[in-house]
């Protein structure tokens, strides 16, 4: 990750979170610098509004810091945990807005095709993401939209059906088929 500054660059996410949990100012600053672009990017992708995205990002960090002491590494990585908090807050915010933006998923959908991670993300995790990105790009467009709406925007199958003007069964089918293909890309990676 870039921009952490000082010796914090080499610190694992978990160790950094441990520092956050005890209120270490340097750890907090390093954590913010490590994750602010990712969290803001996700919030912006879901909300499509810079002001709302900043509010959600700030609240995400506050919640991460407040709950850092009970982070459960068995349930996933720090990145997944942090981004899930951001996603849920963004979805809550979106649901709190009466008007749903026209098509926020289009922004995510378009950007997914060109996004490139930072070079220093070269790791097993990056390999997983690369495979997932490729698999996502190879999905039929209707499945891709359904999966993105469900996974990133927290839409239920019924909501996907409404937004895409398709029957509920079709929405469920698209989500399941899409996720199944993405799953295969992960499983394939893990094979020796």
């Amino acid at each position, binding site marked *: 990750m870039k921009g952490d500054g*000082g*010796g*914090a660059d080499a*610190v*694992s996410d*978990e*160790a*950094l979170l*441990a*520092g*956050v949990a*005890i*209120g*270490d100012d*340097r*750890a907090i*600053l*390093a954590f913010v*610098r490590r994750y*602010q*672009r*990712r969290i*803001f*990017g*996700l919030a*912006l*992708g879901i909300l499509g509004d*810079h002001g709302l995205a*900043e509010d959600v*990002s*700030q609240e995400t*960090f*506050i919640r991460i810091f*407040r709950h*850092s*002491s*009970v*982070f*459960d*590494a*068995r349930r996933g*990585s720090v*990145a*997944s945990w942090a*981004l899930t908090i*951001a996603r849920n807050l963004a979805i809550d915010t979106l649901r709190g807005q009466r008007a749903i933006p026209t098509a926020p998923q289009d922004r995510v959908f378009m950007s*997914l095709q*060109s*996004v490139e991670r930072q070079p220093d993300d070269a790791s097993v995790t990056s390999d997983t*993401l690369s495979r*997932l990105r490729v698999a*996502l790009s190879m999905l039929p467009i209707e499945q891709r939209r359904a999966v993105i709406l*469900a*996974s990133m925007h*927290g839409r*239920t199958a019924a909501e996907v059906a409404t937004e895409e003007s398709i029957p509920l069964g079709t929405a469920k089918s698209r*989500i399941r088929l899409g*996720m199944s293909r*993405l799953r295969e890309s*992960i499983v394939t990676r893990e094979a020796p």
Partner: protein
Amino acid sequence: MTEPTQHSVNCSEIEPDLVEFALGTSSGRSRSRVVSHLSTCSKCTTEIETLTAVADAMLELTPDAEPPLGFEHRLLERLHAEPIRSRRRDHSVMFAVAAAFALIAVLALTVGGATPWHSTNSSRTTSGKIVNARLVSQGRDVGQVFVTAGSPAWIYMTFDDSTHSGPAWCRVTLQNGRVVTAGQFSLVRGYGAWAAQVHTAGSRIVTAQVIGASGTVLATAHLSA
């Protein structure tokens, strides 16, 4: 997907619900069915874990975006205005921290190199103001020790070795050779997690040891380079 379970719902019946469960978009009823099924089906539990990994990774595909100017400043100001709970540094929070570390340690011990710890062959990592080292017993990793570098230091320890139970003590050795008993904790079925303040600079702590009830050294972590 025909693995029988103790419940009336079998794998083929629950399969359509797994994706939405992993995505966190299932209904309450569906979620309840899945949870009930997973409690007895390792096959579907593995499937859920894989699907959840996909769902989590999807979030990481979203492109980064530069926050507005002043974002960091505003966040830190807000943090100072609303101190996070852990800044009170009370003991209950420290135990919660220790518990979190315990979970991390369990993961580290169960999946080995898959975790992102920076523990090295030298069993020591300096990470800014926190040092992380392995607790070793007869060549086996049995836990982790974390020490903050400042003074007074905080030391957090997790210990997991089924061959020991009962009370245990944490003993640290400082650079000047002085030995300090930092605190006592209990090993329940070989497991214990513990945290306490040590009235010295963390950078002066050379080793941390777990001492059993008989006075024997159960494990040692080397915190010096």
